[in-house]
């Protein structure tokens, strides 16, 4: 499995073990952030339920790190970096084949 984050193009590309390729723009990933702050917890809504748009740096991919062997942590230029995107979740997101 190969993960490629290109800051200049603001996109994340994943080549899965079966050879399938997924590509995600930073904007899509930011709006899909699964963290508690964005999604809310215990039945109450999160930040992404309340706002209609996000300023530029919020949508710009800046960094990525592996979380154990099951997920990817993504950091955005705004400093938001709390989302843990499990590979299962990423695989299920609507993606744009190359």
């Amino acid at each position, binding site marked *: *499995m*190969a993960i490629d984050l290109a800051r200049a193009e603001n996109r994340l590309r994943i080549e899965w073990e079966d050879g399938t390729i997924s590509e995600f723009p930073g904007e899509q990933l930011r709006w899909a952030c699964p963290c508690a702050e964005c999604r809310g917890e215990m039945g109450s809504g999160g930040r992404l339920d309340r706002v209609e748009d996000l300023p530029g740096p919020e949508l710009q991919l800046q960094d990525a790190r592996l979380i154990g062997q099951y997920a990817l942590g993504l950091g955005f230029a705004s400093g938001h970096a709390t989302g843990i995107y499990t590979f299962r979740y990423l695989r299920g997101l609507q993606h744009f084949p190359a």
Partner: protein
Amino acid sequence: MSAAPTEQDVLTALSHIQDPDLGRDVVSLGMIKNLAIGADGKVGFTFELTTPACPVRDRFHTMAEEIVSALPGVTAVEVKMTANVRPAFGNRPPAGEMLPGVRQTIAVASGKGGVGKSTVAVNLAVALARSGARVGLLDADIYGPSIPGMTGVHEQPRVVEKPNSKGELQKRLLPLEAWGIKMMSIGFIAGESTTAMVWRGPMVSRAIEQMMQDVDWGELDYLVIDLPPGTGDASLTIGQAIPLTGVTIVATPQDVAVDIAVKALQMFRQLNVTVLGLIENMSWFTCADCGKRHHPFGHGGAERAAQRLGVPFLGALPLETEIRVEADKGTPIVVAAPESEGAQAFTAIASQLAARTSIQSFRRLPVLNVR
């Protein structure tokens, strides 16, 4: 003509510039650097943005020039715009670099407490070391550290200063050594006998990260990690901080223990950690008088569960008074009585575990490239 302004004058003026995204002024955010004021009224400074792609970069530049130029005594302004992209994840090393000298990491977990998980962890670690491997043992059971008692080590770890990969001196904890293995436990640091670790989850996670990151483990073939029972913060932290080679789960044979062990197993499957196998502890008891094997907790529960779940069964361990007595004295049974039934069983399981681990070492971890 008035005298040149002071640093404070310039900073106060610049603090009127607000960063619209971060909602604070640029001075308190630490974006103004290298401020220099000449006697002739020339003012120079660096405006450090958090990203070179800052959408208000030009506006900040113009505003800073205008505001400072307007101060009495200023003859010229030179603003240098730079960007220092801050690491998104602080200073934590990536998962693959947390334990740089360690080849294989094996976690020992259980569903419920009291199944002998720490006894198993200690004896497996020592058995692996006796086979010639370099072995470490990390006691991740913050609330109930039992490694100090079971290995008879009651010292405090020494702190040394060592250069890191960048050549900077860093404080490192030296692991303690006994029975041929290196060890670290919160019990060594905090004093084990009466002090209770009354900590919430995030403190536990931080302590475990430090026992990996700040301990000078050196080169190890295996790091055995004794997890606390259950599916809580400590297990999750380990599963997130490092790419574990695998986990082995200890259960006693009765249904109530096996059912909860399965929950632990499922947690590790969710974290994509390979289950190296199940171990059944307290499997039988050999009567000293009649020599017959008795099964006080039932028989074969863990083996049946392993078959049902499609994971290897690594073996069964007897319920032996000796194992408990030697553990309480601080000597692992594989050292105290290597010919005993218990020690033989531990040694057999350790080699099973080593074999399973070798198979795992051929797996491919995801490759991450950020550019």
